[in-house]
C-alpha cells in the first residue's frame, strides 16, 4: 500500500510503453482496460483513505537532488483524492466513448501518457516535481490538438502551448525564489510543500510570489483575460482532447490555487480577493454573453467552461470552508458535466461532421435518447438543484456571500445566463422543424456511446442528490488548509478576516 500513489502515477506510463506492442485493431480495448485498472486503483486508494484525517496521507519521499532540496515527494488528501478519481474516471469514460479512427494507436498511447502527468500533478508534494508533471502535460496535449485537430489545429496547439508555457515559467521563478527563502530561513534548500507551509512570509514577499504563481495558474484555469487560448484549443481539438482538457487539465489551475497560493500566501490571498473576484466576475458574465453569441456548439460549451471556472475561482477566494469545499466539488462536477457535454457534441459531429447550431434543429424527434441525456447534463450544467452542478455552485456562492453580497449577486447571474445560452442552444438544436433533410436519418446513440454516457448521467443525478460522502472528506482537508492559512497569516488583519469569513467567533 505504501507505493500506491507511485503506482497510480506511473502505471499509465508503463502501460503506454507496452501499448506500442499492441496491434492497431485491439488498441482501443487495451486502452480501456488500462484506464479501467487505473480507475479501480484509484477507488482502492479511496477505500484505504482515512476520511477523518485532513493531513496528507500515503506520503512517500525519495531523494533526487538532495543538495538542492528536490525530492520525489507524493501524498494525497481529501482535495486531491477526488480530483485523482475524477481524472481516472474521465480518462476511462473518454476512452470508452472514443470514436476517432485516424492513427488510433498513437492517440491512445498519448492519452495514457497524459493520464500519468495529470495524476502526477494532483499527487505531487514537491514543487519541482509538481512543475515537472505540470509542464510534461503540455506535450501530449500539444500532440493531440496538433495531430488530430481541425483546420486551424497548428495555430491552436502552438497558442495553447506557448501561453501555458510562459505562464508556468514565471511560476517557476516564484518556486525557485521560495526555495531560496527557505534556504535563508533554515539553512537548507527545500521544495517540499509541507516544509514551505512552515514558512511565515512578510507581506511584500507574499505579494510578488503570489503574482508569480498566479501567472502559472491563471493561464491554465483560464481566468479572464488569459483565456483566449481556450476557445481555439477546444474548437480545434478532437472530441477526446476537448473532454480531457475541459474535465481535467483546467482543474490543474484551480487546484494549484488551493494547493499553493492559499496556504503559502494567506495575506496576499486576502489582499487579492477583490481584484481576483472582479476578474472572475468578468469571466462569468462576459464569457457567458460571448457563449450566447456563438454559432458553434463546441464554442458555446468552451465559453461556458470559462464562465464556470470563474465561479470556482470565486469559491476558492472566499477563503472559507464552504467556498473552497464548494469550489473543489464544483471542479469535480464541472469535470463530469463539461466532459459529458463535449462528448455529446462529439456524438453528432461524428455523424454529420458539423458542429454548427444552424445545421441542426428538431433532432429531438430523431434521436430521443440523445436528447434526453443531453437535457439532463445540460440541467446539471446550469446548476439545477438535485443535479451535481447545483451543489458546488451553491456552496461556492454561499461561501463568497460572506465576503461580498453584491459581488455574489452578480456572480449569481451565471445561473441565469447559463440557463439562457444553454437552453437557447438546446432549443435551436433539438426542437423546431428539421432544417437539414439528412438529419432525418440520424441514428440514435449506439451501445458504445450509451456505455460511456450513462455512467456520467448516473453520477450527475446520484451526486446531485447525495453529495455528502465526497463533500465530507473534502471539507476535512479544506479545514486543514484554512487552519494553515490562519496560523501562517503574517498580519493580524488577515487572521481576523479569515476567521470572519469562516464565521468563527472570538476573532477580535
Amino acid at each position, binding site marked *: 500500500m505504501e507505493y500506491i500513489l507511485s503506482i497510480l502515477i506511473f502505471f499509465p506510463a508503463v502501460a503506454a510503453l507496452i501499448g506500442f506492442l499492441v496491434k492497431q485493431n485491439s488498441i482501443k480495448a487495451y486502452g480501456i482496460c488500462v484506464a479501467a485498472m487505473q480507475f479501480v486503483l484509484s477507488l482502492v486508494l479511496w477505500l484505504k483513505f482515512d476520511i477523518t484525517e485532513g493531513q496528507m496521507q500515503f506520503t512517500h519521499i525519495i531523494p*533526487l537532488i538532495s543538495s*538542492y532540496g528536490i525530492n520525489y515527494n507524493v501524498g494525497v488528501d481529501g482535495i486531491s483524492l477526488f480530483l485523482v478519481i475524477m481524472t481516472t474516471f474521465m480518462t476511462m469514460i473518454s476512452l470508452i466513448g472514443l470514436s476517432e479512427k485516424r492513427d488510433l494507436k498513437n492517440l491512445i498511447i498519448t492519452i495514457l501518457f497524459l493520464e500519468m502527468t495529470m495524476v502526477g500533478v494532483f499527487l505531487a508534494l514537491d514543487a*519541482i516535481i509538481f512543475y515537472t508533471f505540470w509542464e510534461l502535460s*503540455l506535450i501530449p496535449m500539444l500532440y493531440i490538438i496538433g*495531430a488530430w485537430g481541425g483546420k486551424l489545429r*497548428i495555430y491552436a496547439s502552438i497558442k495553447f502551448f*506557448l501561453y501555458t508555457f510562459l505562464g508556468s515559467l514565471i511560476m517557476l*521563478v516564484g518556486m525557485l525564489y521560495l526555495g*531560496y527563502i527557505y534556504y535563508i530561513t533554515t539553512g537548507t534548500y527545500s521544495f517540499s510543500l509541507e516544509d514551505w507551509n512552515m514558512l511565515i512570509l512578510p507581506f511584500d514577499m507574499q505579494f510578488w510570489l503570489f503574482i508569480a504563481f498566479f501567472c502559472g495558474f491563471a493561464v491554465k484555469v483560464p481566468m479572464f483575460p488569459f483565456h483566449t487560448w481556450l476557445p481555439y484549443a477546444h474548437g480545434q481539438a478532437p472530441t477526446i482532447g476537448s473532454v480531457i482538457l475541459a474535465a481535467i487539465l483546467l482543474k490543474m489551475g484551480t487546484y494549484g490555487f488551493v494547493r499553493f497560493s492559499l496556504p503559502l500566501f494567506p495575506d496576499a490571498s486576502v489582499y487579492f480577493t477583490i481584484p481576483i473576484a472582479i476578474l472572475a466576475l468578468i469571466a462569468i458574465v462576459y464569457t457567458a454573453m460571448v457563449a450566447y453569441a456563438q454559432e458553434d456548439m463546441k464554442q458555446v460549451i468552451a465559453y461556458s467552461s470559462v464562465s464556470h471556472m470563474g465561479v470556482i475561482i470565486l469559491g476558492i477566494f472566499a477563503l472559507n470552508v464552504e467556498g473552497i469545499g464548494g469550489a473543489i466539488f464544483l471542479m469535480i462536477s464541472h469535470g463530469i458535466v463539461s466532459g459529458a457535454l463535449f462528448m455529446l457534441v462529439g456524438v453528432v459531429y461524428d455523424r454529420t461532421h458539423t458542429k454548427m447550431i444552424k445545421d441542426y434543429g428538431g433532432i429531438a424527434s430523431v434521436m430521443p435518447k440523445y436528447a434526453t441525456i443531453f437535457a439532463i447534463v445540460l440541467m446539471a450544467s446550469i446548476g439545477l438543484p438535485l443535479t451535481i452542478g447545483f451543489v458546488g455552485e451553491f456552496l461556492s456562492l454561499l461561501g463568497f456571500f460572506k465576503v461580498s453580497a453584491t459581488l455574489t449577486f452578480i456572480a449569481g447571474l451565471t445561473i441565469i445566463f447559463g440557463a439562457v445560452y444553454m437552453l437557447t442552444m438546446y432549443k435551436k438544436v433539438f426542437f423546431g422543424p428539421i432544417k437539414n433533410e439528412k438529419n432525418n436519418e440520424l441514428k440514435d446513440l449506439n451501445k458504445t456511446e450509451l456505455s460511456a454516457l450513462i455512467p456520467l448521467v448516473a453520477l450527475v443525478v446520484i451526486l446531485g442528490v447525495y453529495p455528502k460522502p465526497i463533500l465530507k472528506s473534502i471539507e476535512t482537508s479544506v479545514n486543514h488548509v484554512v487552519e494553515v492559512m490562519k496560523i501562517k497569516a503574517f498580519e493580524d488583519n488577515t487572521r481576523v478576516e479569515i476567521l470572519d469569513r469562516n464565521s468563527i467567533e472570538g476573532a477580535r
Partner: protein
Amino acid sequence: MNSISPIAIEFASLNFPTIVPMIIAILGALVILIIDLINKNLDKSLYVMIAVLFLIIDLGVIIGFTSDVRGFFDLLLVDGISILSQGIIVLASIFFVLTAMGKLRFQEYRYPEYFALYLFMVAGFQFMVSSDSLILILVGLETASMALYTMIAMHNRLNALEAAIKYFTMGVLSTAFFAFGSLIFYAVTGTVEFGKISEVLVASNYENYPLILLGVVFILGALGFKLSLVPYHTWVADVYEGSTASLAGFLSIVPKMAAFVVALRFFEIFIASSDPFVEIILYITVVLTITIPNIVALLQNDIKRMLAYSSISNAGFAMTAILIGSTQATEGLFLYWMMFLITNLGAFSLIWINRNKTSSDFSSTSDNAMDKYSGLIKKEPFFALLMGLFLFSLAGIPPFALFWGKLYLIGSAVNAGYLMLALIMILNSAIAGYYYLKPIVFMFFKEATEQRDDILLNSTTPIKVVIGVCTVLVIFSIFLIEPLLEIISYYVQISGY
C-alpha cells in the same frame, strides 16, 4: 609600474605530469600521421578508433588529478576547473569523433589528417583551459582554431570554404584582440598571469583604470568571438551551415567550453571586486546574447541554422553564470554545459544521419530545410520521437536534461539577487519554446511534401549508439544531477570559485 624582472627558468618547475594529458592527444595525432605514412589504404574507422583510444587514455589521466598543481614552467595551472573542463572537452570529443563513422563517404573523413587535426585541436583546448597565463591561453587557442579552420575547409563544398574563410578571418581578428588585450594588461600590471594581474590591480587600487577597461573590452571581444556573444556572433550560423552537422555540433559545445573557462578565470578578477563597469558591460552582453539570437532564430527555416542561433542563446544563458559569479552559479555553468552537451550531441547527430548526399546539389545552401522533416512521424516514428525529445529538452521542459541546467542557473540568479536577469532568462525560454516547436510541428503535424526513403541514409551502428546513449541520459537526467553536482562542486570548490 614595476620594472620587468628577468625570467628565470628552473627545470624542476616543468612538473611533467601536468602536460601528460595534452601530450597523449598530440601523440595520438602523430601516431595517426605515421600510420598513414606506412600504409595509405586504411579505412577511416581505424583512425576514428585510434583517436577514441588516445582520448580515453587522455580522459583517464585527467581523472587521475585530484588537486591543484602547477607545471610547465608555471604556465600551466591544473586546478579543479581545469580538470572538470578538460574532462568535458575530452568526453565530448570522444562522442563527436564517433559521429564521423557515418555511412556516406564524405571526403574529409578519407584523410587521416582530419583525425590528426582533431586530436591536435583537443590538445589545444586542453592547454587553453589549464592555464592562467594569457600567453599559453593564446597558444592553445590558436592551435585549436587553426586545426578547426582546416577541418571545416576539408568538407568539400562551396559553402564549407566560405564558412572556413569566414571563421578564419573572424578568428584572426579575435586573436588580434586577445593579443592586444593581453598587451594592455602586461603594460599595466607587468604580468600575464590572471592571479598576479588581480593582485597587482588590487594593490595599485586600479590605477590607469581607463586603460584596464580598454583591455577588458579587447579581451571580451576576443572571447566574444569564440563564445559567439552578441555582437560578435554573426559568423555562427554561416559557419555551422557550411560545416557538417557533426562538426557543427562539436563547434557548439567544445570550443565554447574552453572559452567559458578562460572567461571565468578572466572575469573573476573583476567580478570578485564587483567592478561596476565590467559588470554592466557583461550584463548588457549577456542579455543581448540571450535575446537577439532567440529572435533571429524565430525566422529561420533551416533546422541547422535554427540550432546555431539557439546555441548562441544558450551560450548567453551559460554566460550568466560568469556574471553572477557565485559558487553555485559556477557549478551551474558546468552542469548546464554537460546537459547541453548530451542534448545537442543527440540533436546534431540526428540531423547528421538525416544527411542526404545526393538530393542537394553541390552549392545548395540549405540542406536541412524544415520541409525535409515534414511528416516524419509517419515514416520514421522513432527518429521523429527522438528529435522531439531533444527539442523539448532544449526548450527546457522537465524532466529532460537541459531543464535541470536551466533550473540550477536561474536558481543561482535568483539566489544572488539577479531577479531581473532571471525574468529575462525565463522570457527567452518562452520565446525559444516557439522555434523549438517549429520542427516539431513539421515532423508531427504536417504531411510529407516529398517522398523520401533515405532519412536514415547516413546512419551506422556507432552513431546510433551515440544517439541511444544521449537519449537515455536526456530522459533519466534527473538521476544524474545529484552525482554530477557532487563531482562539480568538489572540483569547483577546490579551485576556489
